[in-house]
């Protein structure tokens, strides 16, 4: 069992993707099958970018055992009032500045869902959001 933790800074787009890149390298080093790595990379990048785009700060915890890769991304931020709505493709609350960079297309949460086996979103308005992503290694 491998357990790693990465800090994600809210609002800092210069570092967006850094945690995901580091985790991807580790997954490669420990020989997780490439097909799994590709999908996990998409999901965790989206989760990381969401923290950068919406929250004040957050962390990504990675738990790896021979049967699965489990990612937990928790942030201190505004929270999501309506998770069902947020899960809809195209729905976004991103600012205009964020959208101009090509983020905020409302594809983040749907991209996560498409690329993992299990996904859970827990959120409290005014406090923060927890996204849990599980991929089973078969």
């Amino acid at each position, binding site marked *: 069992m491998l357990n790693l933790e990465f800090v994600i800074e809210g609002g800092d*787009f*210069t570092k*967006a*993707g*850094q945690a*995901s*890149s580091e985790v*991807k390298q580790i997954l490669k080093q420990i020989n997780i099958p490439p097909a799994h790595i*590709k999908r996990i*990379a*998409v999901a965790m*990048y*989206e989760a990381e*970018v969401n923290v950068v785009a919406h929250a004040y700060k957050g962390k990504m915890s990675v738990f790896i055992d021979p049967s699965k890769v489990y990612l937990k991304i928790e942030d201190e931020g505004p929270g999501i009032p309506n998770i069902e709505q947020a899960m809809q493709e195209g729905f976004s609350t991103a600012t205009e500045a964020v959208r101009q*960079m*090509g*983020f905020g*297309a409302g*594809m*983040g949460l*749907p*991209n996560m869902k*498409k*690329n993992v086996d299990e996904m859970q979103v827990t959120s409290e308005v005014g406090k923060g959001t927890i996204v849990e992503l599980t991929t089973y290694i078969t």
Partner: protein
Amino acid sequence: MGNRPVSKINVDTKQDKKRNMKLKEIIEKLNLTVICANDQFENEVSGGYCSDLLSDVMGNATEGQIWITIQVHKNIIAVASLKELSAIVIVKGLEPGEDTIETAKKENIVLLSSNETAFDLAGKLYGLIN
């Protein structure tokens, strides 16, 4: 003998198959400017993807493709790296900032540019590899 008309045609059996081209051939044929690259010129390009939405590229581009975009900020490098794309082509003569170029070098990502529009360049690339 000798009275029968003889016709001979060389049939190109590769005609219908998708061509896998090397990055250097594509750079040459599409007249692309190399902003930064390391030793990837012999790499094979599997296709192309054209989009300015980062999540769209994350969700739908596949390994080995060339990504055509008008985005120039440094976050495009993380996307190309995570998706293992063969190169990013910035179109319309737009210039990436120093920080984008520095990140590309650090992450070993091929950054190219073209004066053409995304539509024109994508059309030519499609013609080359399909």
